[in-house]
């Protein structure tokens, strides 16, 4: 695939119309809402959006209001990739029959971690295997926030949620986060990227690449949630940035299966001493508060260990090694 040469300037982007508008009812400081805004700023022309059931669907289309300036459809929770498949198939057929007014219409599917890691993975796997031309955007806030902070396959080890509560015996979620982006790479699709709302330019360029990709593209965006992660609403971007700086959420992309570390993460491969400890990241979020009790302190070490392990594996995939 070709990679975009598009390097948007801040001025160009702020002057571009909002396709996901004000008046949506996301919580103050919502990370996913920032992700949607940023992705929609990367569109290149006529676009149809489909949304899985989840926070962003609910907050953006409370009848009779809609925050969408593009054609938009929601049907259910587990099937957003099938929505995208159907839209794309319809566009192809109508174009073939001369019934489409546009030369090209991009299709974007938005889903949260529940709709992607868990209930929606079958439809997602099927849609990308079939090779539909669409961009799938996962906004990952690491739990079922829409229904009140229940654990998902994305919830990190040690996090307390309402279905993996930190109790006297159990220190929050016992399992580790599913490596969803690597699972998508294993589907051998042309484009996979991770992105963070703290690095808007990187995110926009990746979204544009995903849209320009012929065939399925997958983007995993790290979107902190003040309500579910239990931090002050002003810290959303700070925590998103810390996710990258601690390497618990490194930024990378694969083009035709080749892993490339993005510059924001590459710095920590080149200068490992700059990589921050995970404890500072955990400390900022009250979903991990219990880990700082003496009884559960070992969990922090376990998390650090797993972060390092995954980071080193990523570096190998990117043909880099950490020299510490």
């Amino acid at each position, binding site marked *: 695939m070709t990679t975009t040469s598009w390097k948007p300037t801040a001025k160009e982007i*702020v002057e571009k119309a909002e396709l996901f*508008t*004000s008046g949506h009812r996301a919580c103050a400081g919502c990370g996913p809402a920032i992700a949607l805004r940023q992705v929609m700023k990367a569109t290149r022309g006529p676009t149809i959006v489909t949304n899985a059931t989840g926070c962003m669907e609910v907050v953006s289309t409370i009848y009779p209001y*809609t925050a969408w300036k593009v054609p938009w459809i929601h049907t259910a929770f587990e099937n957003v990739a099938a929505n995208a498949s159907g839209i794309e198939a319809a566009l192809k057929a109508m174009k073939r029959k001369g019934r489409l007014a546009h030369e090209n219409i991009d299709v974007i599917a938005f889903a949260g971690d529940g709709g992607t890691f868990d209930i929606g993975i079958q439809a997602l796997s099927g849609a990308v295997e079939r090779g539909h031309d669409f961009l799938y955007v996962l906004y990952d806030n690491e739990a079922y926030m829409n229904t009140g902070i229940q654990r998902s396959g994305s919830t990190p080890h040690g996090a307390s949620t309402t279905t993996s509560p930190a109790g006297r015996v159990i220190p929050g979620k016992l399992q580790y986060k599913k490596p969803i982006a690597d699972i998508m790479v294993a589907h051998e699709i042309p484009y996979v990227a991770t992105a963070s709302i703290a690095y808007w330019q990187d995110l926009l360029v990746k979204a544009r690449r995903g849209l320009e990709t012929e065939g399925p593209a997958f983007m995993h965006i790290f979107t902190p949630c003040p309500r579910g992660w239990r931090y002050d609403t*002003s810290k959303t971007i700070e925590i998103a940035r810390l996710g990258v700086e601690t390497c618990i959420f490194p930024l990378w992309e694969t083009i035709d299966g080749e892993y490339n570390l993005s510059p924001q993460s590459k710095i920590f491969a080149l200068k490992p001493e700059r990589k921050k400890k995970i404890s500072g990241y955990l400390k900022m979020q009250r979903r991990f508060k219990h880990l700082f009790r003496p009884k559960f302190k070992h969990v922090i070490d376990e998390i650090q260990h797993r972060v390092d392990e995954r980071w080193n594996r990523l570096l190998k995939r990117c043909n880099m090694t950490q020299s510490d």
Partner: protein
Amino acid sequence: MNKTLKGWKDIPIAGVCWKPATQYLTGDWKTFKPIHDAEKCTKCLLCPMICPDSAIKWNQTNEEIEFDYDFCKGCGICANECPADAIKMVREGGE
């Protein structure tokens, strides 16, 4: 029964939305509001990129940052992130 709401004959089929969300003001959610210091502002344009509510506008005519208090929910991300320290949060009804 609420007589101000439309009946089934008067609304589009299938739940098609007929009002833009921009008619639904979220500005009254906030307890703190951001105050912009034009003197300190370097116009780096970071704040409009990271506002969840598109409530920070770039006024192309006078080339200034402007807050849209009709929609700002007062999260404080802009103040927290501003590299020039040009935004501070004050209690609603304060300054």
